[in-house]
């Protein structure tokens, strides 16, 4: 092992890239991350002086959909990320080593780069019954996450499991599944919810950290504003149908075949903050609504308990696209729970008329007493 890791520029030289290639890459990185031209110099400087960021990726109560989503990234593609941009020193899904050797690799990074490594977490942590519901190497996930967090520079919580508990935290949360931010304090935590998050949102979060060496701007729920500041409803290409009162009444009816709004068949777009409508999935191919199914709200806390998916929302707060998650606050996470009285839609009488006949009392939120959100 070479003691002093190479900087990204040295690393690219070894791969045969020219200075010109390097500068072009740096400009691309800056552009991808939304930095104005004057900031490109900073990116170049950072890459000339920094070794690849050491990264450890943990798997707890999860289904690996976040890892799968990550490898779908189209810009940058994942082999470029793991070979050139970061040093992914531990991930149970992809690493060659296993057992003892895997643990050693993890240990080496945590020791050598104490205070510098980036910790990624996929999955929630069960806290009931002494954490016996998820063990790795004979240790509880709870134990592992606490130790690893101590030496981490920052923590990125991939997906809804790590960000808000997701499905295992759904009522009655049999294992006490708990998101990371409820276990760890005193470290920067970035929540990247979604089941899974969009591949390029995951890659984009990493790129942001690498290029600017700082945490992206987060909203009140710890989510990067770049990807979670707009409701799916407000960025949905079918929104004009909603405004015009054109709704799908049942799947595959004439209106469905015309691509009308899916609000009446349960779409959660109006209470879901995510980039699906803008970035779409798998390099922009489609997103749930475009393919005919309502949004199920998978990036929102407690979405599994927000009523049956095909029962439409009773009401939802805020109508205008000026609304952001912080303005509405955490109420969006449980919008159907609020009930029509508290949050009757009031800003648009014409639209209210159109949907009034469909308003009904939605199911109460389940009592997610343990973990969750």
């Amino acid at each position, binding site marked *: 092992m070479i003691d*002093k890791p*190479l900087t990204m520029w040295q690393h690219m030289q*070894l791969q*045969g890239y020219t200075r010109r290639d390097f500068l072009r890459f740096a400009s691309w990185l800056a552009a991808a991350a939304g930095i104005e031209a004057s900031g490109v110099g900073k990116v170049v400087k950072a890459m000339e002086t920094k*070794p*690849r960021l050491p990264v450890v990726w943990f798997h707890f109560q*999860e*289904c690996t*959909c976040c890892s*799968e*989503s990550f*490898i*779908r*990234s*189209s810009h940058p*593609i*994942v082999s470029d990320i*793991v070979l050139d941009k970061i*040093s992914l*020193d531990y*991930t*149970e*899904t992809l*690493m*060659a*080593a*296993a*057992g*003892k050797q895997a*643990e050693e690799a993890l240990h080496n990074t*945590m020791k050598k780069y104490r205070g510098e490594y980036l910790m990624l977490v996929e999955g929630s942590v069960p806290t009931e019954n002494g954490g016996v*519901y998820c063990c*790795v*190497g*004979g240790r509880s996930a709870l134990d592992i996450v606490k130790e690893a967090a101590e030496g981490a520079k920052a923590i990125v919580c991939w997906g809804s499991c790590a960000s808000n508990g997701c*499905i*295992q935290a759904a009522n*009655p949360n*049999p*294992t006490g599944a708990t998101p990371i931010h409820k276990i760890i304090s005193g470290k920067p935590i970035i929540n990247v919810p979604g089941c*899974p998050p969009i*591949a390029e949102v995951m890659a984009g979060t990493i790129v942001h950290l690498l290029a600017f060496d700082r945490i992206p701007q987060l909203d009140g729920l710890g989510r990067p504003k770049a990807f979670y500041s707009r409701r799916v409803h407000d960025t949905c290409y*079918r929104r004009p149908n909603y405004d015009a009162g054109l709704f799908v009444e049942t*799947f*595959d009816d004439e209106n*469905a*075949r015309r*691509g009308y709004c899916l609000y009446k068949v349960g779409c959660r777009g109006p209470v879901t903050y995510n980039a699906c409508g803008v970035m779409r*999935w*798998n*390099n922009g191919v489609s*997103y*749930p609504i*475009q*393919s*005919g*199914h309502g949004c199920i709200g998978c990036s929102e806390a407690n979405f599994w308990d927000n009523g*049956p*998916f*095909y029962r439409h929302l009773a009401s939802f707060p805020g109508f205008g696209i000026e609304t952001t998650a912080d303005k509405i606050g955490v109420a969006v996470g449980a919008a159907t729970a609020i009930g029509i009285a508290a949050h009757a839609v009031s800003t648009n009488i014409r639209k209210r008329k159109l949907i009034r006949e469909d308003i009904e009392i939605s199911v109460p939120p389940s009592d997610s007493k343990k973990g969750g959100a």
Partner: protein
Amino acid sequence: MASRIVVDPITRIEGHLRIEAEIKDGKIVDAYSSGTMVRGFEIILKGRDPRDAWAFTERVCGVCTTVHALASVRTVEDALGIVVPPNAELVRNLMFCAQYLQDHVVHFYHLHALDWVDVVSALKADPKKASDIAQTISNWPKSSPKYFSDVQKRLTGFVNSGQLGIFANAYWGHAAYKLPAEVNLVAVAHYLEALEWQKEMVKVHTIFGGKNPHPNYLVGGAPCSINTDESNAINAERLAYVGKLFEDAQQFVEQVYIPDLLAVAGFYKDWGAIGSGLPNYLAYGDLPMNGYNDPTKFKFQRGAILNRDLSTVHPVDGKNVEQVQEYIAHSWYEYSGGDGVGKHPWDGETKLNYTGPKPPYEHLDVEKKYSWLKTPRWKGNAMEVGPLARLLVAYASGNEEVKEVVNSTLKALDVPVGALFSTLGRTAARGLETKLIAGWAKEFFNQLLANIKNGDTRMFNNEKWDPETWPAEARGVGLSEAPRGALAHWIVIKDKKIANYQLVVPSTWNASPRDTKGQLSAYEAALIGTPVKNPDQPVEILRTIHSFDPCIACAVHLYDEKGRYIHQIDTF
């Protein structure tokens, strides 16, 4: 002297699995497989709307995403007597095929290959010779000396950086690696190509289901409407996109995956006699050509094989309460009838009852309960499920396409039929069915085009969508084949809500602990007899376990004969 090794975590799998194995004279003489994570899906599902169950169960696994959604919608449709339109069946088949193509390729290159391919050895390869080899085995265009030299240069730069990332601390240089440096280089190049290709394949899911992982499904059909005169629906452009993805997939499978598989297998023929495991195989069959309710017209046949007797295929019925039963003698659960009974999933119970050691622990008490997996049995028999089981059942059922591809491969590799029942056989079977599926996908695609051309654009059956149309009580079962093997869901619906929901997944069949009678399940059985040259670096265990493509997380540790660890494996 026997020693016990523990591997924890077993990497390059989905989930949390731990293997403890006893080694004597360089071979495994006993093995224990434990799933160490639980979430309690079946408990969470109670009381929910049955039409939502697909979304919940899909989250069981994000690697084999879609398969639980498919099993779930079939289960609910079976309970309620819903028949889906032919187009919806075809869309489900196409999503099924896309899943297999992506999943099997990723398994081969990214989860399994590093057990056979020495990445560091590729640094010493002669790119010109690598190019010659590549061009001999395939017409794949990326095969010039310059191409392999560029890959090697990139890899050299990576290794010289001192940060080895995902390749750090592995078993490189282990005597069990037998490929020439040039074949290793070709495999590493294709590792990177496959990583880039797989993200394309899944776009079939994105088009029909809106996203991947975890595309959307729908009880009664598929959510994507067809309208050839509308930009907001499945139209000619969307269909052409799907067609192109499958064309590319077939090329990749036939020109990269299969040639690589055969080339690598040629150097490891001894693994055709290792890891044989159970003699019983179970497949539910899948890929309906005449609707899900006509299993006689499936591409993969349904049935069971006992004692490797390929002359008899036993009929399998998910509704017969005497056939599939789950046991908990060695699982951390509680049954109302006690630990000795087996329960058909309709009467299944899921009550967590952890009685294992308090973490941190050094080893599990394998004499008692040691896993979060229940132990399923078919008519009391332990069964192997997966690609090998599917091919064997199809072969024994007289499936001509399967017979042809199996026989020609045995001939090409010059190995006996018995080599199928092995670690190598499992890995080869996965490749062979991928080749078949790449062809079948095009048949389904053409059938979908023909239906639309003939004016049938139906995608959803609305008749039983409204819960008011449902009976007070209904029971259903949905059978499917996940990439990792036979998958089934069982539901009991009462008062329009889920009263009971049970899943018996492939890795439960394969990775479960022993049953009440002490019968081993597939992983445990297959590990017995597997050689382990160096207990410090048990790459052979990974080979056999990965040949099943586990969908759970595992762990491995090493003990001596008194149960003391030879190697303490700290998580950090």
